[in-house]
């Protein structure tokens, strides 16, 4: 009886593991099948030669290139805000905060993690309304606002990942630095953070992935269907982004060919996040090598 139970459990875990692979496989195959005939420079740049679009800033109205640039910029900006902030907050909570402060920050981080992204979008939108009624009557939604709201959205992942990676370090590693005469800051910087880097980086990867795919926040804070055929031109301007582009195409397409462009855009977004993940993995490897030497 017991043996059977064990077999069923093992079988179920195999099925679950292959299930994940199968779902991802089916998704990718489906996307490729639907968009295979339009994959190529045409999908990204329309009829504009790619060199002119990429280097000369030529406007692209039929391709998704402006949305690709928009998403990359948005991810870079929000990661630039959320990663240092989350790292610092996680370090503070784990290493310096007293028990009472730690408990309240943990609660706040949990609440923040539970906020649906549409609510975060509404928050950004109402901030603009507030600004318009008070100090800045010209204020409008745009790239910077979207990046700040996305950063707020992913901040809890980063804080939590940093905090738990540091908290998971064994006592022996914590005692090592002081026993060698290192100060608290030296121990943190030279021993604890490097030893926890894997966990911290996985938080950063999660944040970047979430920042790239979120649609609800940006549709309320500055993303538009077409922004003059170019990537973002300034921090306060409107911008295109891939998830929003996909949403617009899916909602408003007139022909099957248009919808196929949406599938193509989805495949590009998937490739983009996969590339970011691989980049993060390579970064981690080189950081570990640097720490080694």
């Amino acid at each position, binding site marked *: 009886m017991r043996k059977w139970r064990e077999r069923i459990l093992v079988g179920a875990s195999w099925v679950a593991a292959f299930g994940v692979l199968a779902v991802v496989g089916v998704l990718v195959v489906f996307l490729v099948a639907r968009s295979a005939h339009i994959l190529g420079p045409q999908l990204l740049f329309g009829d504009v030669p790619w060199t002119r679009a990429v280097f000369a800033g030529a406007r692209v109205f039929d391709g998704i290139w402006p949305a690709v640039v928009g998403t990359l910029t948005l991810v870079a900006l929000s990661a630039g805000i959320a990663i240092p902030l989350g790292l610092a907050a996680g370090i503070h909570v784990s290493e310096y905060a007293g028990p009472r402060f730690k408990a309240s920050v943990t609660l706040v981080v949990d609440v923040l993690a539970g906020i649906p992204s549409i609510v975060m979008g509404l928050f950004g939108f109402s901030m603009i309304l507030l600004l318009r009624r008070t100090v800045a009557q010209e204020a409008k939604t745009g790239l910077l606002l979207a990046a700040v709201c996305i950063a707020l959205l992913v901040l809890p992942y980063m804080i939590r990942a940093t905090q738990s990676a540091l908290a998971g370090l064994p006592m*022996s*590693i*914590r*005692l*090592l630095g*002081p*026993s*060698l*005469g*290192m*100060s608290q800051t*030296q121990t943190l910087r*030279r*021993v604890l953070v*490097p*030893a926890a880097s894997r966990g911290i980086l996985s938080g950063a990867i999660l944040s970047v992935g979430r920042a790239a795919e979120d649609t609800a926040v940006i549709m309320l804070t500055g993303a538009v269907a077409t922004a003059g055929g170019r990537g973002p031109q300034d921090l306060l301007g409107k911008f295109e982004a891939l998830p929003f582009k996909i949403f617009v195409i899916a909602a408003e397409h007139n022909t099957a060919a248009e919808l196929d462009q949406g599938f193509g855009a989805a495949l590009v977004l998937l490739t983009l996040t996969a590339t970011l993940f691989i980049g993060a993995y390579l970064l981690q490897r080189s950081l570990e090598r640097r*720490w*080694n*030497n």
Partner: protein
Amino acid sequence: MEQLITVAGLSVWFGDTRVLTDVDIEFRRGEVTALIGPSGSGKTTLLRSVNRMNDLFSGVRTEGQVTLALGDEAVQAYGNGMDVALLRRTAGMVFQNPNVLPASIRKNFALPLKHVLGLSRDEIDERLEATLKDVELWDDVRDRLGDPALTLSGGQQQRLCFARVLSLEPQALLLDEPTASLDFLATRRIEALIERLKGRFPILSVSHSLGQTSRMADRAYVLKEGSIVEALDRDALHDAERLQQLAEELF
């Protein structure tokens, strides 16, 4: 001048729990002094009170005196204005499990020299060779200093830890069961190393084994429930009957 560390009237509390009660011990250069006793008797706490590692835990309170007479003048470990980082370098500590970082052999060794002493790469390399020879590790690792330290055997890792502490030029050694996780041969090599080091500075060592204490120690203190119940000299440590009796009492 004699090099001597004296612990007098030491009591330590963790929160409301009193871990050590009015402990008096001393250990000097030329001898290995062992702390023995059942687990939970306060051996590690006593060891860590010498270099103030207990201060790292919250809710710790220490009373009493630890006096280090190692150079021209005696200093109080718990005195006003004590530089705790300097104290911890002066009384170097080796832990129970080899405390190596998941980094290269060289990096493990160089970390405190670079960041605590601020030595240059050349100075570090010089100390690296000299100290690794001192602990008889140089021949094993000279060609693979860039390899991860975790690829070394347990005994080699522990000797690397000894080297890392010795490279900071301590004036006393605190050992927390340094052979507890090692096999027979590795244990014997570490014991031989300790034997050689005891002529250089005072050594206080927590031991889990009466056999080892009898082999190595010149003096031993027996701890029970936070108090010293007995001090053993060399003769007592070699008295088989006495040790048998002690083993039955303690464990």
